């Protein structure tokens, strides 16, 4: 089915009831319309996650998410669809989990991925709790992703959406098994283009909403400004330190490790006539290592805080495709087990800017086998190689 019929079909009791998380954007609006059309009993919920008072900055342009405009959009779309809509305030929980984690990660020289924390802790935990309290069957979102069930184990897995340019399966690795079994992704079999066409055809109010940005609560995309302005007490004591090159030579002074991320080139204030990139943030020495593009290439890293949709045996010692940042290509790697429920990942070929704090997601074809947080990058590749025999023996 590629279009939303204008006349709403009646609710089919057997289909069940679903709460759809609606941002007010085009994706979740079309997802809601599809569910209504498929005969589910649907309720729209907009989760208010933060307000402008939380974000600060001289924000002229309305941000894409959580603004009043968007909430009203969601409300209007629900009215068009003839379904109820409510706004629920999750801002306290969002601040205590997502934003606190965001600040903490930068403080420790890592680069957080708040969308993944939000998916795991807010959407598929707090919102799902509401789904239960209200006696609804399913939770749905406008993510471009699918879920599939392993016929042998009966386990649910996330899998890639049809639109590879919009695929959001990377951001969903943290969803739990029970939660996933009760999740619907109405857009998984559609492309963004088709979704926009449907919205226009059905005259949905959100048909022309712009694409959402990366971090909703940093609408100006300036996370340094956000940290310094909104969390001054957290970051004011972070000491300055040195930029150091591969030979140990001091190249300049940095403003505190929270202001930098791996692979960063702009804003370093180092003039050497060559393009210089951050390749490592050393929390212990407070040094930030910089160098050529080639020097950001590493092969091996450790992943922790893991969530799997499959058995560990399906990963260990196997060659899988691993994605280390949103909207990048998954690259082949071998995966090994370590102590403390950690995994060691070794790419077949070195990858640039493997960044602690980001997620590593394991794919087999289009299916997500699981994922985790990148804990650290292995600098001494030789040690790994030397150790590889033992690792193989162990797994």
């Amino acid at each position, binding site marked *: 089915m590629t279009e939303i019929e204008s006349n709403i079909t009646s609710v089919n009791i057997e289909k069940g009831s679903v709460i759809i998380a609606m941002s007010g954007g085009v994706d979740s609006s079309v997802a809601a319309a599809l569910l209504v059309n498929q005969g589910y009993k649907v309720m729209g919920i*907009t989760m208010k996650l933060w307000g402008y008072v939380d974000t600060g900055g001289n924000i002229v342009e309305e941000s894409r998410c959580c603004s*009043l405009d968007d909430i009203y959009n969601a409300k209007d779309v629900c009215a068009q669809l003839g379904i*109820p809509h*409510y706004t629920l305030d999750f801002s306290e929980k969002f601040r205590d989990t997502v934003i606190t984690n965001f600040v903490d990660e930068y403080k420790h020289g890592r680069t957080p991925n708040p969308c993944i924390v939000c998916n795991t802790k807010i959407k598929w935990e707090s919102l799902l709790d509401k789904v239960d309290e209200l006696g609804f069957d399913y939770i749905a979102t406008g993510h471009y992703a699918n879920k599939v069930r392993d016929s042998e184990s009966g386990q649910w897995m996330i899998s890639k959406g049809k639109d590879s340019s919009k695929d959001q399966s990377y951001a969903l690795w943290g969803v739990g098994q029970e939660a996933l079994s009760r999740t619907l992704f109405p857009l998984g079999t559609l492309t963004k283009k088709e979704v926009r066409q449907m919205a226009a055809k059905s005259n949905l109010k959100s048909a022309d909403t712009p694409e959402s940005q990366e971090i909703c609560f940093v609408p100006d995309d300036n996370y340094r400004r956000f940290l310094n302005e909104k969390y001054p007490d957290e970051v004011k004591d972070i000491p300055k330190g040195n930029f150091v090159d591969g030979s140990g030579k001091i190249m300049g002074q940095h403003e505190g490790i929270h202001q930098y991320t791996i692979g960063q080139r702009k804003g370093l204030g180092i003039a050497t006539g060559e393009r210089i990139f951050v390749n490592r943030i050393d929390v212990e020495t407070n040094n930030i290592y910089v160098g050529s593009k080639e020097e950001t290439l590493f092969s091996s890293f450790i992943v922790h805080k893991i969530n799997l949709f499959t058995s560990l045996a399906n990963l260990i010692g196997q060659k899988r495709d691993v994605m280390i940042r949103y909207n990048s290509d998954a690259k082949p790697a071998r995966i090994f087990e370590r102590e403390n429920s950690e995994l060691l990942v070794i790419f077949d070929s070195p990858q640039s800017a493997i960044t602690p704090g980001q997620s590593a997601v394991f794919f087999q074809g289009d299916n997500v086998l699981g994922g985790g947080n990148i804990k650290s990058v292995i600098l001494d590749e030789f040690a790994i190689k030397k150790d590889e025999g033992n690792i193989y023996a162990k797994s």
Partner: protein
Amino acid sequence: MIYLDYAATTPITPLVKEGIYLFLNSGPANASSVHQAGQAAHHILSKARSQLASIIHSKEKEIIFTSGGTEANNLAILGFAQSQSHDKTQHFITSKIEHASVLSAFEYLESLGHEVTYLSPQSSGCITPDSVAKAIQKNTALVSIMWTNNEIGNNNPIHEIAQLCSDKNIIFHCDAVQALGYEDFQFDHLNIDMLSISSHKIYGPSGIGALIVKTRVPLKPLIFGGHQNWNLRGGTENLLGIHGFQIALTELESHRLEDKEHSERLFIHALGLLKNNPKICINTNLENRSNHILNFTIKNIDGESLFMRLDMLGFAVSNGAACSSGAQKPSHVLKALGKSDEEAQSSIRMSWGRFSTIDEINSFAKALQNIID
């Protein structure tokens, strides 16, 4: 749907609807126009004003039509403050349980450097004359205390507070939006200098209200641009609204006793159904109540979900203050009464009126019991 949210807005009566419809068919009408059509419009305005004046026992000159209760409150507080000397810091007294339009106006005055005392209610929810007396300073210019609280439905001892202010020669404003229709309004016998009322709480259209002001009160306009309302509120009169307001008020007058008895009957009935449930704690003060609002807290329940479930079942009630996003915030009134955020969030305001029935209260109570038990 079972509508138990009369304190938010009331249904428009058939008589008011008919009057509005007839008015809409009566041709163009600007009460300021000099031609005969304008004269006809002016006649409607004068009639409405004199009718309103006779019902609330005020002079016609004392009525300033506004866009509703919020504007009436703003005009009373800010219009009065504007009329005072700008060199001196003025002191104002209000309470923590006022409507947002009163609180926000005072917060604005604070931002201009004026001083505001926000009185806390007693645990019963009432503001005592004693607490007002204690807060009065040499430079106190205005006291503003509401008559009936819109969230918990308690009545403040407004006559005593008015008398106190009158004795001290301090201007007294009263937000009476929720009291209109339930309390006796004889403006000429009250010591109230300014009184805010609104049409859509008494079965009239929304978008129209009035500030009733004793002529001795100095006031500056907030909206400039025309001679209307004695230069105190510019803009072509909302004749459609004024006309509807007048019909509603006239109808209200003839229903007064009946309405009062009916709402009391419903109050006693609802209270009887709810008060013995150990999970329910009544917030409305039973001694000084207005009878059309019943507010209660449900222990250990998620307020948001409760509210949504009631709505899904077709019961329109309120759980205090909704912010512009529609997300529910803990009510500032319940918090002023000492409730925690959680308790305030899991509180329900039922309110009823002329068209509510015992059956409706029964089915609501039954649905509520099913959810919480």
